[in-house]
């Protein structure tokens, strides 16, 4: 009989923070015993415990704050982004599955193709849920809210109202962010699941032959960095969609992210062991370039690519800052439009 009470109290307190457990336990036990008649039978105990209700619900009442992974403020954005990603990832992974079968030397039966396609799609669905939920849970934890920034809870003022005019200077282009999410998802799916698909494709008598761009063993060393950058970039895009407009802190975050991307990209590009030497040999054969010239080409290509990456990063970062401030330069089109409208 006492054992029932012990089990009930235990079921409640094991769900509570350690610091309050003992105190709640003795108080709860006291209250339950108070509710029992003097010479209580097991039936009385059962009646009282049932009156107290489900221990899980009771523990929730005792807990200081409601806990959730993704709160109501973020939920709509979560569903939107999940839909976008669910449209892309399963298709990408399904086709990656098909490509995997196609590249097998022995070829595959129809059944192999169907199985690869379906399992790729299922993987895509699972990964979509996992990663989107992870990103949103992190944002929820950091305190991101619709239209407000993390770690910066300021009182709302009328100035924060989104402008009525569509062509606002600091508005974030949703389409651009959605494209960026699609690109990130597709790129990271290929890099993680079928990196050998990045390569020089040739049709031979036995079907397609691919010479990979990357040294696959070496590439694995870069995966953690690439994966974390993808998650951060994904989160940044989602946050831009949620926030809807450029702000100074967002521009700073954007710049830091660009910096990180450029850093990892430069590191990877200058790492000769990351590139498959077989590719260069084959390219030399195909384009009938002498081995000496072929040695120089990767160096030139790397320099050009790094220059392009740095340029794009600088431009994109600068754009963030320009758009988050009232900059004269960007006022111009509006002014010209207004001036032209006034003339008519």
């Amino acid at each position, binding site marked *: 009989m006492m054992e029932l009470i012990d089990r009930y109290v235990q079921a409640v307190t094991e769900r509570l923070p350690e610091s*309050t457990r003992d*105190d*709640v336990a*003795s*108080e*709860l036990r*006291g*209250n339950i*015993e*108070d*509710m029992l008649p003097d010479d209580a039978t097991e039936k009385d105990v059962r009646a009282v415990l049932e*009156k*107290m*209700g489900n221990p899980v*619900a*009771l523990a929730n*009442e*005792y807990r*200081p704050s409601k806990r959730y992974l993704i709160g109501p403020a973020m939920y709509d954005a979560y569903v939107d982004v999940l839909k976008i990603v669910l449209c892309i990832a399963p298709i990408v992974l399904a086709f990656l599955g098909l490509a995997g079968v196609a590249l097998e030397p022995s070829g595959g039966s129809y059944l192999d193709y169907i199985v690869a396609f379906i399992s790729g799609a299922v993987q895509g669905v699972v990964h979509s849920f996992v990663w989107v939920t992870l990103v949103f849970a992190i944002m929820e934890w950091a305190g991101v809210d619709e239209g407000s920034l993390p770690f910066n809870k300021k009182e709302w003022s009328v100035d924060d109202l989104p402008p009525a005019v569509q062509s606002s200077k600091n508005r974030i282009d949703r389409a651009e962010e959605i494209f960026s999410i699609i690109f990130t998802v597709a790129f990271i799916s290929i890099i993680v699941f079928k990196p050998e698909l990045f390569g020089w494709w040739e049709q031979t008598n036995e079907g397609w032959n691919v010479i990979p761009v990357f040294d696959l063993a070496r590439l694995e060393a870069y995966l953690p960095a690439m994966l974390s950058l993808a998650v951060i970039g994904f989160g940044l895009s989602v946050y831009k969609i949620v926030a809807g407009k450029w702000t100074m802190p967002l521009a700073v975050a954007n710049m830091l992210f660009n910096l990180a991307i450029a850093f990892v990209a430069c590191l990877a590009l200058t790492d000769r062991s990351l590139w498959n030497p077989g590719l260069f040999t084959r390219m030399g054969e195909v384009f009938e370039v002498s081995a000496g010239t072929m040695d120089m080409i990767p160096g030139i290509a790397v320099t050009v690519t790094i220059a392009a990456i740095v340029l794009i990063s600088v431009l994109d970062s600068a754009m963030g800052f320009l758009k988050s401030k009232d900059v004269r330069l960007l006022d111009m089109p509006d002014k010209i439009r207004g001036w032209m409208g006034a003339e008519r």
Partner: protein
Amino acid sequence: MATGSTEELVDSLVVELRRGTLVLSVLSQMGHPEYGYSLAQKLEEKDAVIEPGTLYPLLRRLEKQNLLVSRWDTSESRPRKYYELSEEGNEVYERLKEEWLNLSRKLNVLIGGENDGTD
């Protein structure tokens, strides 16, 4: 056909309505030290039952908000945790009481007005 869901809706709205009055109900009875069960009985006698599963956790929450102070009494056979209004709790109670009287006055006007219109 719709009666089942109407019934449910009314139930959930009533629960919501009552939830807002819980704190005031509890604070009103805390002029003297009370422990969980004694308070539950006191409320029951006055026909203002609060489920024990709601009441006991609520007492702890109010203590955490500094509206109640507590002490363990171990002199009797069964140790009991007694709660009592703090100074701040007393002030909050007085102000809540005023708000409630105000609110119910206004609501009575609103509800009364509607009755005049329909009858």
